[in-house]
């Protein structure tokens, strides 16, 4: 079978030239990659592979071109002398390319380790730079937080002690008050309504009832009163108390705004007591703003902490710093005698603590006050149970 050798010759020579060209183009690209990131081990590996491939392409292609040139020009003998050297170099280079290729996995693993270390180093460096640049501010912030926390803890301790004392006294007073009220009502039954003695007994009954209300408030503050918890939706509760206040309190030019979080979950709480707290706060705000101002009620849900926050803010005259640490103390009031017993915020504090929550205040004279209640969301309660 006689066939033309032209295609073989053509493909051999052209292919050999193309191999050299493309192998060097590959080296050119890898060199650019390497210049861009000299520490990248993968580019180094690819440079080894491409260099070995180029050396193989040169050795093989020169051999092939030389072979065809010598055979076509009739120098078969000359080729016979060169063939062994060409073939040997070719074999050697082929083995080198294959050997370098096998380093891929090891190189890739080392590269992965280096990248991980680099990432960790970069993150640490960024953190260090941030801390270094913001050290003073961070220390100041932490110190403030610590001082605030210490103050809160001291206040909580103090209120707990007062609460314990109040609870003891309230329990002791509650029983005699009950007896006095009972006997007073018994005596009233035997008296004519138009009688002076009846009026006197009525006065005793009224004051005993006032005393009992105060005792009840003290028990609330001391968290000794029982709660009847149910699922409640705070925005609805707030709406109800705001309607109540609008109807029963002369607001004049005082505006009441509200802003509710759309994602607000329900909470497990005693609705009556929560309403009592909200009425206390809104009425205090009403008293603080005077005849003209704004009261804002906002609700927020903190997904991360899984708790809700209710904020009652006013644009009133604010609280002096010396009074801030005492506002939750029982019987502490800045109102004139007869305007308040000084139990409203104490009772609110006790009720919120009894619900596993917290209440705090931010205020500055002339800038209004901002009371924030934080209560656990029902989802957290569910998790606990």
């Amino acid at each position, binding site marked *: 079978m*006689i066939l033309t050798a032209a295609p073989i010759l053509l493909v051999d020579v052209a292919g050999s030239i193309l191999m050299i060209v493309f192998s060097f183009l590959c080296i050119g690209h890898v060199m650019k990659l390497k210049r861009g990131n000299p520490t990248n081990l993968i580019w180094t590996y690819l440079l080894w592979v491409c260099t070995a491939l180029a050396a193989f392409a040169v050795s093989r292609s020169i051999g092939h071109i030389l072979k065809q040139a010598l055979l076509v020009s009739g120098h078969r003998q000359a080729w016979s002398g060169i063939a062994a050297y060409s073939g040997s170099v070719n074999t050697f280079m082929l083995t080198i390319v294959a050997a370098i290729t096998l380093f891929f996995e090891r190189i890739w693993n080392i590269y992965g380790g280096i990248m991980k270390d680099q990432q960790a180093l970069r993150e640490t460096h960024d953190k260090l730079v941030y801390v270094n640049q913001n050290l003073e501010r961070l220390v100041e912030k932490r110190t403030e937080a610590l001082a605030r926390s210490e103050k809160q803890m001291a206040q909580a301790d103090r209120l707990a002690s007062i609460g314990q004392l109040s609870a003891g006294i309230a329990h002791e007073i509650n029983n005699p008050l009950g007896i006095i009220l009972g006997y007073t009502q018994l005596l009233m039954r035997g008296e004519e309504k138009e009688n002076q003695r009846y009026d006197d007994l009525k006065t005793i009954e009224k004051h005993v009832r006032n005393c009992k209300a105060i005792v009840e408030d003290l028990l609330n503050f001391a968290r000794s009163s029982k709660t009847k918890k149910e699922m409640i939706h705070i925005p609805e509760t707030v709406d109800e108390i705001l309607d109540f206040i609008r109807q029963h309190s002369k607001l004049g030019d005082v505006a009441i705004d509200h802003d509710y979080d759309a994602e607000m979950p329900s909470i497990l709480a005693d609705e009556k007591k929560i309403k009592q707290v909200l009425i206390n706060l809104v009425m205090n705000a009403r008293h603080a703003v005077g005849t003209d101002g704004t009261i804002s009620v906002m609700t927020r849900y903190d997904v991360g902490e899984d708790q809700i926050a209710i904020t009652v803010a006013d644009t009133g005259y604010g609280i002096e710093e010396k009074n801030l640490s005492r506002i939750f103390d029982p019987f502490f009031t800045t109102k004139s005698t007869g305007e308040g017993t000084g139990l409203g915020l104490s009772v609110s504090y006790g009720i919120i603590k009894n619900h596993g929550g917290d209440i705090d205040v931010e205020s500055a004279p002339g800038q209004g006050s901002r009371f924030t209640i934080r209560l656990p969301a029902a989802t957290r309660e569910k998790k606990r149970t």
Partner: protein
Amino acid sequence: MDRLIRHRWIARGAWRSGSAFAVVPAAFLICPAVAAATQGHGGREGLYVHQLSHVFFCISMGILIYWLRTRNLTREPGWRYIGIGAMLFCLWSADAFIVHLLEEQTAIIDVQRIDNWRIRLEAVDGWGWVRPFYYLAKLDHLFCVPALIFFYMGLRRLMSDAAVSGETAS
């Protein structure tokens, strides 16, 4: 007699020093034989070594493809091109191995160069189909050149990807 005494003295000294190593070379000296330390490399060794290098190359490219696939690197266009290049190199190596096998290791086919532009292919009885197969297989550059082109394309893509991530100088 004097020489014998001296030899005994040397042997005793070596033994006394506890060095048995002195005895081993002495044994070689006592029983000399033809040296066979190096092996000749004439004949067809060169061809076998070349063929083994093709097998080694084919396996290493196959392993590279396997690693690229197991690390999901073939999802990235750059490494995918390099994987295709490696596969074509595998095919080229197998093709070159077969050509050498047919041409030089077996007597199945006989290739004669009639002149510069014609060749005669003769096959043993029953192996006539090998002739066109050999002719096509001889065009092995049709595998290795595209393989290098795919390597080139892969590197170019890796370079453009690196440029996007701000890694290259250009």
